[in-house]
């Protein structure tokens, strides 16, 4: 039967016991004579009762949510402490193992590999983070060896990667494994000429492999605009995506499509994409054809060279929300205004380039 809005209003009042005596008598009479209506009323009774229980559950659920956030925060601190301990012990081990050059080289690679521990890779070696080890490229094996046994060995290892702005006043996002526990890094913007700024690590989440930086340099003014927005919808398989990163001294464009909505070993934190990325691409934004940020590049699969991985932007959003909750005075605003939507790819890249920076750690 057709239930009009008028009848439904009476049903609602009836179920909430809000009818007056006369109305109640009339309606009960109707129900007796109309089994179809009675059936409808019973169905609505269930709907109302569930909605009511859902409503009563809200307060407790909010309480649990705040406990959960607190727990997440504690966990990221815990894992950092754990990580530092582990790193120190590995370093110590290498220092005392003064053996042949070959062995030293092996040890060097082990050290470099472990120095950017991400949860996910503890049991798999094929997953490669994409920080570019400058020492490995610019110095020959000899000097690498010397470095291993000199006292400053630790300070001379340097990495480069990519980061990008999320606010015009100089907050940047990058991969945690690039900055680790270093609290200052140098970022360089290259449009016509290269300008370098000092930046500081403000917050990070090791599990998400995300870090928030802030340009602290006095000579930094501000970014003109943040042209992209965050993707709000689920990204579809096969979606065309691209990235811009510093796999060499100049910015490099790479494009491909979304291969899977999960990352390495079906990790739900990440997307798998078919962009041939290079070391140095870590921390680069992954943008879809409409100019929306869908992820942050952080690794590739060594055995399957076409595949790269990116942490989903929804986790970046969570990360920022959590940061805002604990830093009410800063309150970062997530970019919502997308000026890339209608543009051709070349134009999109031109607009994005100023806010994508090269990152160096020493």
């Amino acid at each position, binding site marked *: 039967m057709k239930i009009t809005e008028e009848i439904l209003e009476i049903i609602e009042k009836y179920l909430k016991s809000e009818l007056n005596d006369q109305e109640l008598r009339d309606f009960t009479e109707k129900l007796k004579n109309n089994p179809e209506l009675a059936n409808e009323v019973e169905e*609505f009774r269930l709907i109302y009762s569930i909605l*009511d229980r859902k409503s009563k559950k809200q307060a407790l659920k909010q309480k*649990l949510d705040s*406990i959960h956030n607190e727990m997440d925060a504690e966990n990221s601190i815990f894992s950092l402490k754990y990580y530092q301990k582990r790193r120190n012990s590995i370093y110590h081990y290498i220092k005392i193992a003064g053996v042949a050059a070959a062995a030293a080289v092996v040890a060097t690679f082990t050290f470099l590999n472990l120095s950017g521990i991400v949860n996910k890779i503890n049991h798999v070696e094929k997953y490669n983070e994409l920080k570019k080890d400058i020492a490995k490229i610019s110095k020959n094996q000899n000097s690498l060896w010397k470095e291993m046994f000199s006292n400053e060995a630790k300070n001379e290892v340097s990495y480069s990667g990519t980061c990008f702005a999320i606010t015009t006043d100089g907050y940047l996002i990058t991969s945690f494994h690039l900055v680790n526990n270093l609290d200052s890094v140098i970022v360089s913007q290259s449009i016509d000429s290269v300008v370098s700024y000092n930046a500081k690590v403000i917050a990070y989440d090791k599990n998400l492999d995300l870090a928030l930086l802030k340009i602290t340099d006095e000579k930094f003014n501000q970014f003109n605009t943040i042209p992209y927005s965050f993707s709000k919808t689920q990204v579809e398989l096969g979606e065309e995506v691209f990235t811009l990163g510093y796999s060499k001294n100049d910015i490099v464009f790479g494009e491909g499509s979304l291969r899977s909505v999960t990352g390495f070993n079906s990790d739900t934190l990440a997307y798998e994409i078919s962009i041939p990325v290079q070391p140095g691409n870590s921390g680069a934004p992954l943008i879809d054809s409409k100019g929306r940020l869908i992820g942050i590049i952080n690794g590739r699969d060594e055995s399957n060279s076409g595949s790269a991985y990116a942490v989903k932007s929804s986790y970046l959003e969570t990360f920022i929300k959590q940061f805002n909750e604990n830093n009410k005075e800063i309150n970062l605003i997530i970019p919502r205004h997308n000026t890339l939507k209608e543009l051709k790819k070349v134009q999109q890249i031109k607009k994005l380039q100023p806010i994508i920076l090269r990152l160096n750690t020493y």
Partner: protein
Amino acid sequence: MLKISIKEATMPKQLFLTDNDIIEGIRKNNDEALNFLYKTHFAMISGFVMNNNGSYQEAKDIYQDTIIVFYNNIRKTGFTLECRIKTYLYSVARRLWLNELKYKSNGRIDITDNEDFLNLQDNGTNEAIESEIQINKMNKSMEALGEPCFSLLKMFYVEKCNMNEIADSMGYTNADNAKNQKYKCLQRLKKIFFKTSIND
């Protein structure tokens, strides 16, 4: 030195050494007890859900529903827990997740257990689990409605806002328009909800 902006870890001020301490605490409205309970068992349940095709978000939802079942039950007079809290939570979560998997997969469900579980049959628990399952189905039905119905119904029936507030925040010209729209939405919601029941 490293700048840590995320809140420093806080240990509960009070220690809850036994299951009974936790239960007593929750019965006395002690938030520390709830906090302790929540953090103690999350890893076990989230591990189970994520090992069985669940995402982190799904694991979190299932865990919170499980805690709510436990919380409401032990606060009822006359309810006694006849096993360890851990086993109780795992058994409840297992049933809730099996039910979710029914929606997600067609037919065959393989589940890998990492704990012992009981077939909880007391009335309080059964009823509470069924209620959570119904609420989850309601959530899915509401999501399927899309906007503006989702927000409209949520604000009125769940958050208990009044019609004027709703009309205001959703841009209806007056409360009557919003009310009419609300009833239309409710009809659609009922249709979707019962349609999914038949498919079970």
